[in-house]
Structures are given as C-alpha cells and as structure tokens.
C-alpha cells in the first residue's frame, strides 16, 4: 500500500453507484425491487392472513380489514399477493440461472473454438429460435407436464438461445485479445482459458441481459400459470390468481387486478433497473 492511497481523503464511489445516482428511473426500480424482495422473504410474518385458508366471506371488496378484498373462496387477496412475490421472484431467478448456465455451456465453446463446434451449436440454437417466444416454453411443458418446477425449466430452456448467442458473440471478440493469446502461449488448457480469461470478461453484458431476463422470465412464468400449466390451486401465484378472477371481472374486479398489478410493478422495477445497469455498463448501447 502506497502513502498516496492512504492519504486519499474520501473513498471514491464506483462508477456503477454514480450512474445509478444520476438515473432516477434506475433508483426507483432498485427501491421497488428491493421492496418486493423484502416482502417475498418476510411474507409469512408480514402477511395479515394465511394465504391459502378461507378466512371469512368470499367476494368482498377492499376494506380496512382486507386491503385488496377477498377472493371467491374467502381468502385474503392482500396476503396472497404478498406471498406471491416469493414465488414469482423465485421463478424469475431460477429460470434465469438455468438459461444462463445452459446458454453459457453452449455459447462459450462455440465462440472459443469456432469452426465445426460453432456451426453445430448455432444450428441447434437456430432450431430453438424457430419456436416463437412462449411456444418453446409450451413445448417443454407439453413434454414434462404442468407444475411450477417445470415452468422454471421451461422458461429457462426457452431463454437458452438468447444467452448462447450473447456469450458466443462476446467470446468471439474476447478470444482475439492479446491476453488470451498470452495465456495460450504459456500453455494454459482450453478449459482454463475459457473459464479464467474469457468468462470473466463477459460479465458486463451477461449481467445486463440477465437482469432484464428476470423480468421477462416472470412475465412468461406467470403467463404459463395463467394458462393453467404452472402453479396449481391453491398456490398464491400471481398469474394463477389473475386467471382465477378472470370470470368475475365484471363484479369482483379486485380478485384479478391486484395480482396482475403486482406482476406489472415487479417487472417494471426490474426493467428500470436493467436499463440503468445497461446505461452504466454499456455506454454504447442503442436502446436507451
């Protein structure tokens, strides 16, 4: 440690913190997301009622006792929405983890080795991309059966092409860097070069994409539950709750409107934060 660094009067804030401080949208998103995370973790303690047990009269509008009313079976919608945060955030995170892992596993060697490996992997990715959006997830559900775990697998699998393409593209450029050549000259194995030299340099774009992907994973996951292929009753899942209230929109609007708004607000939070991250980590990005 040199005297110069010791003498520095105050700690400099990282560029990330500064970029966030300058971006009110990203800060709002971060706070909103933090709130949902806290709610998700603390749901059993902060929710006023049991999310799955009928606690009174059904189909009652919002009151002081039941802020978001009660559903068809007399369950407290507010308590269910709070518990739903835990489910949706888990679906978002786990499916992104699945997609990221599998996508990296495909994209990294494709970009690093190029040639035949690249050709095979990318043809496979093209095949996956032939199923538009939700359809790939539906194909997975059709073969695995409905359920929340399978939703996470399905959403994860359907995001694999996005990650594979990003990781491949970025590792193509990183591969040509001098330090990768140097590592090869020193005699590092291919696996070591990929893990120690290429992967860490992909972190920026991967973090940005993953953040935004958590939002779309929540959207797709809740859509699958809405269609009856994910969470099953009486699970307090936001998409399923929206579906359960669908037939009663005319008279009991609160049953669907609040869970749907919960999805919307969580995804808005993630998108605001993701856009902020992108502006901070990738100044040249086009979609700002």
């Amino acid at each position, binding site marked *: 440690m040199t005297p110069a660094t010791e003498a520095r009067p105050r700690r400099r804030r990282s560029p990330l913190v500064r970029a966030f401080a300058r971006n009110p949208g990203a800060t709002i998103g971060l706070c909103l997301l933090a709130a949902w995370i806290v709610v998700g973790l603390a749901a059993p303690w902060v929710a006023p009622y049991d999310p799955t047990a009928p606690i009174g009269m059904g189909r009652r509008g919002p009151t002081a006792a039941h802020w978001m009313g009660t559903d068809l079976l007399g369950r407290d919608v507010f308590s269910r929405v709070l518990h739903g945060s835990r489910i949706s955030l888990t679906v978002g995170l786990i499916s992104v983890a699945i997609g990221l892992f599998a996508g990296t596993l495909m994209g990294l060697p494709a970009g690093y080795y190029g040639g035949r490996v690249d050709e095979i992997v990318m*043809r*496979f990715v*093209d*095949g996956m991309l*032939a*199923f*538009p*959006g*939700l*359809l790939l997830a*539906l*194909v997975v*559900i*059709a*073969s*695995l*059966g409905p359920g929340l775990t399978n939703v996470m697998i399905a959403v994860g699998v359907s995001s694999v092409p996005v990650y594979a393409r990003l990781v491949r593209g970025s590792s193509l450029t990183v591969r040509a860097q001098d330090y990768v050549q140097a590592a090869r000259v020193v005699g590092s194995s291919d696996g070591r070069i990929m893990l120690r030299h290429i992967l860490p340099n992909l972190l920026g774009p991967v973090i940005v994409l993953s953040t935004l992907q958590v*939002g779309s994973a929540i*959207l797709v996951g*809740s*859509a699958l539950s*809405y*269609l*009856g*292929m994910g969470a099953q009753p009486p699970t307090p899942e936001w*998409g399923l709750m*929206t*579906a359960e*209230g*669908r037939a009663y*929109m*005319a008279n009991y*609007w609160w049953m*669907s*409107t609040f869970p*749907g*708004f919960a*999805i*919307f607000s969580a*995804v*808005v939070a993630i*998108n*605001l934060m993701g856009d902020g991250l992108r502006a901070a980590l990738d100044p040249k990005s*086009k*979609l*700002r």
Partner: protein
Amino acid sequence: MSALLPVLWLVSTVVFLIMQVLPGDPVQLMLAGAEAGGVTPERIQELRRVMGLDQPLHVQYWRFVTNAVRGDLGESIRFRSPVTNLVLERAQHTLRLALLALAVAVLIGLPLGALAAVRENSWVDTVSMFVGLLGVSMPLFWLGQLMIFFFAFRLQWLPAISGDQAIGILMPALTLGFVSAALISRLTRSSLIEALHEDYVRTARAKGVAFGAVVRRHALRNALIAVVTVVGLQFGGMLSGAVVAETVFSRPGLGSLVVQSILWKDYPLIQGAVLFIATIYVLVNLIVDLVYARLDPRIRYG
C-alpha cells in the same frame, strides 16, 4: 433457403420428441385426458396400433416426418378428426388477429417513435419512453382483462367475449398490438436518432433542405430498414402472444388450440399445431430476410 431445411428438420425432431420424453405412457395419458375416463385395454391397444406406437422408435420417427412433409399430421384424440384440418381451420382466425395487431402496433409505434426522435428529450420523448416501458412490462393477460373490464363492462362499447363477431377482434388486436407498439416505438426512436446524426443529414441541412423534408426523405427512410425487420419479427411475437390473447378473450385460434390440446394431453394435436406455428414463423422470418436485402442494397446473401 438452404438454411431453411435443417431448421425445419430440427423443429420436427423436437416436436416428435415431445411425446418420447413424457413421463408415463402417452396413450394412457391421452385417453385419460382427452376422452375423460374411457380407458379400456382394448382402446389402449387400438390407439397404440393406429398411432404406430407399437413400432420401434426409428420407424415411428420416419413415419412422423414423412407424413408431416405430405401434410398428414395424424388424427386428434379429442376431436377424432385429422389434425391438419383442425389446424388450418383455426389458423385463419389467428392470422387475421396477428395481422390486425401488427397494423395496430405499426400505427401506434412508428409515429410515436419518430416523434420522440425528432423531439429528443422533450415531453413527447418522455411519453413515448413511458409507453415503451409499460408495453414491455405489462402481462398481456392482465392488460386484456383490464380492457375487458373497461371497454366491455364499464363503458359497454365492445362485447366481453369476442367469439365470432367481427367487432370482437378489436380488443384482442389492441391488446396484442400495444405490446409490440412499445418495441417498435423504442426501435424507431433509437434508429432515427442515429440516422439524424449521420453526415448525409448534415449535408442536406447545409444545402438548405427543410428539417421536415430531411427527416422524411433521408433519415426516416434509412431508419426504417431496421424497423421493417423488427416489424417482421414481431409477427412471431404475435403468434406467441395469440396463445395468451386467445385464451383471455375466449377466441378460437391456433394459440388457444395449443393451450387446450396441452391441457387435454391430445399429443397429435399438440405436435401438429406446434409444427404448423413454427413452420409459419420460420417462413415469415425468411421473407423478412429477403425483404431486408431488397430494402438495403448493402446487404447481399450469398
């Protein structure tokens, strides 16, 4: 064109495999799901024979692919009629919905994005960015239900269940279109801003061409190249959005057919519908690529 066949081959293989990785006997699942309880050993044997499931895997696969190429997608368990007919009959509804939604998306997204770019950092820009954020963050099914609530129940302008009436297509098309409009406006904005900073725009301005004319004749034309591609690709988004929209609005179509066939465990119907949608999607993407090359002479496919 040469890339098309391997992709279609992969698609059909994936679709064929749906039934193979299934936990349990597909025939029993199908009969329990689609025929609601009529599971007799005779019916199981019959179905297994009719569907060729008693054959070795490679024979089944060969049969599936060669039949699919000839347009024979097997028979639906639930409807007891050829899958091809069911799919084609539903396809027209979805196609109409997708095209109308695409029109909505372009009509909202393009002007909004262009206006935002021309008036960068003004209130128009802020509004368009906000609409963009709403569009990409809103669950389609929730937006659909809110539309039903306001336009059908509160204002009573439109029917709640779209059914077969011509007017019924309006709400699903608006719902689907809004989500894509957000993407289109975002992209139009960013590519037009980029184009406005190009040298040829400065040249045109310098020789005295009015700003509006520069935008229309120079910048917008170049910006639209990227937009056209995205509009084309949005067609795929429409096909997948239709899965949700058709369910929310209780409309017949390919999307609701896929959902129902999965819930019924009607595997030939699932396979046929999925294969059909993927094929249409791949073909549309190919057309978009070709149009793209025609619009931008710098792009040539070897």
